[in-house]
């Protein structure tokens, strides 16, 4: 083949690009971690552990460690292999701590050493659970609000990534022709754990809802957890259809019905939140009418009607269709409908999250400007 043709073909490889969603979520994570490192923080005893670990490293490793490149991997591999010191040194670290990247790297190494895509997915979900614990610990710490915010956002961003990786592994497991003995148990565990994580993050959102940025980051984490749960159910249904696993129809129907029920609850919550917003907007309009029309609406409240109006109804309609298909025994179509409903519900929730702080802000009448945030 002439060299010019080969070069032309090589140049066409420039079209290869990373997934845009990954690029965006990765950017957010990176900037969160950087922001944490940049914000003033209290001195951590773990910094001393770094010097201790360094002094205990085998002599031959010191040259390698002296380079800025490779430090994290070498340290993670060393800490991981030495057991007690390794696990204890980085295990308790939180976002912003010196050894936190080592903790994350250690987790990555563990996933790398795990065989089986479904087990890798389970590990990622397990590590997502660790992020929830970190968020909890950070919330309880006495530190500056900015630092706390950066830490929470960093942990939530990593949590979202763990869930995305779990979904990727579940997709691989779905297409994997090999049959693993405990496949069904592992995937069911992924489904249950993601539900648990989703509920814990929602709880945290309620506590921290005043800060819109934190709320936004936590919502992404909730959505990622929910999508992973739905993906797990999709894999269970698919594997059962192919005969790779054996589950009774009752059990399968029960698993899908649980997802339908959860999605229905989420739609109701979104509707409730929307009800509050609309009530506030009506109160504002009523107040404006009484004071000669000088009040200003909270910023963005008026746009709720157009962005949002049909979404919960649409999500509910699709969910009903899912139930019908489930009743007819078409499990694959049922779970597809559930996925669509979840997606629309998440869009509606995002709209509500963006508007709620503004709509909840107190509004003054008689010519003074509204104090929407």
């Amino acid at each position, binding site marked *: 083949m002439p060299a010019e043709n*080969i070069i032309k073909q090589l140049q066409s490889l*420039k079209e290869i*690009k*990373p997934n845009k969603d990954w690029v965006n979520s*990765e950017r957010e994570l*990176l900037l969160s971690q950087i*922001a944490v490192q940049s914000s003033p923080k209290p001195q951590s005893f773990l910094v001393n552990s770094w010097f201790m670990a360094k002094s205990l490293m085998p002599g031959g490793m010191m040259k390698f460690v002296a380079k*800025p*490149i490779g430090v994290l991997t070498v340290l993670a591999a060393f800490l991981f292999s030495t057991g007690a010191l390794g696990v204890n040194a980085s295990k308790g670290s939180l976002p912003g701590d010196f050894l936190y990247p080592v903790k994350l790297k250690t987790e990555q*190494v563990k996933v790398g050493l795990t065989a089986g895509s479904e087990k890798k997915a389970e590990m990622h979900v397990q590590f997502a659970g660790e992020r929830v614990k970190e968020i909890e610990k950070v919330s309880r710490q006495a530190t500056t609000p900015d630092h706390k915010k950066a830490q929470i956002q960093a942990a939530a961003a990593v949590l979202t990534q763990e869930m995305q990786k779990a979904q990727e592994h579940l997709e691989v497991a779905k297409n994997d022709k090999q049959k693993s003995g405990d496949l069904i148990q592992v995937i069911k565990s992924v489904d249950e754990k993601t539900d648990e994580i989703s509920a814990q993050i929602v709880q945290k959102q309620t506590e921290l809802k005043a800060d819109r940025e934190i709320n936004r980051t936590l919502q992404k984490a909730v959505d990622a957890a929910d999508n992973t749960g739905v993906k797990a159910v999709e894999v269970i249904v698919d594997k059962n259809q192919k005969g790779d696993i054996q589950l009774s129809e009752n059990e399968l129907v029960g698993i899908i019905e649980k997802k339908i029920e959860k999605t229905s609850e989420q739609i109701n919550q979104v509707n409730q939140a929307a009800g509050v917003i609309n009530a506030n907007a009506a109160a504002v309009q009523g107040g404006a009418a009484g004071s000669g029309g000088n009040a200003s609406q909270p910023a963005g409240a008026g746009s709720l009607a157009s962005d949002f109006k049909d979404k919960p109804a649409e999500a509910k309609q699709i969910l009903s269709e899912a139930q019908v298909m489930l009743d007819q025994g078409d499990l694959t179509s049922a779970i597809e409908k559930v996925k669509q409903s979840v997606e629309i519900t998440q869009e509606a929730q995002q709209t509500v999250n963006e508007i709620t702080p503004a709509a909840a802000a107190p509004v003054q009448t008689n010519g003074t400007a509204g104090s929407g945030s």
Partner: protein
Amino acid sequence: MHKSSLKEKYLIFKVRQNKDADAYGQLYDYYVDRIFRFILFKVSSIEEAEDLTSEVFLKTWEYVNNGAGKIKNLNALLYKVARNAVIDHYRAKSGDAVATDEEQMELIQDKRDLEGEANAKIEILNIEKHLKKLKDVYREIIILKYIEEFSIGEIAEIVDKSKGNVRVLLHRALQALREIAGE
């Protein structure tokens, strides 16, 4: 932004002086596709490429902020960090079971964001398969020269070899690729 331009130098200055995350974000936006692509040709899965790309940008941040010397060429630095990250990755990973080349190619091709017509996609898949068969040192030189479009001097800096050495390697790499493509 290209080849240590004024803008890039200013962004690096902001990163070093103020630990400016936004400035680093702009550098990330410019380089992420290229670093990901470079790593993807060296590893066996998209996930590995993503993980290592993340690691590269975090390490580079630390290096830019903590390194004593001036950053003359961020481009070269990023690729060096990427090369070393891949080497470390395989050292840590040695002994782990990996999927066959065929399976990995399927994983990568299913999930990648490819643009262009269907025929172009087929061409891309073929040349990728040929690339995978090359020796690592040849593949790296080919990628840096024809995909990332670095000069011989820039490649020499990244791979830590002389320009003459790089020219010879490039000639041999292209020869080897032509032989594989002609199979």
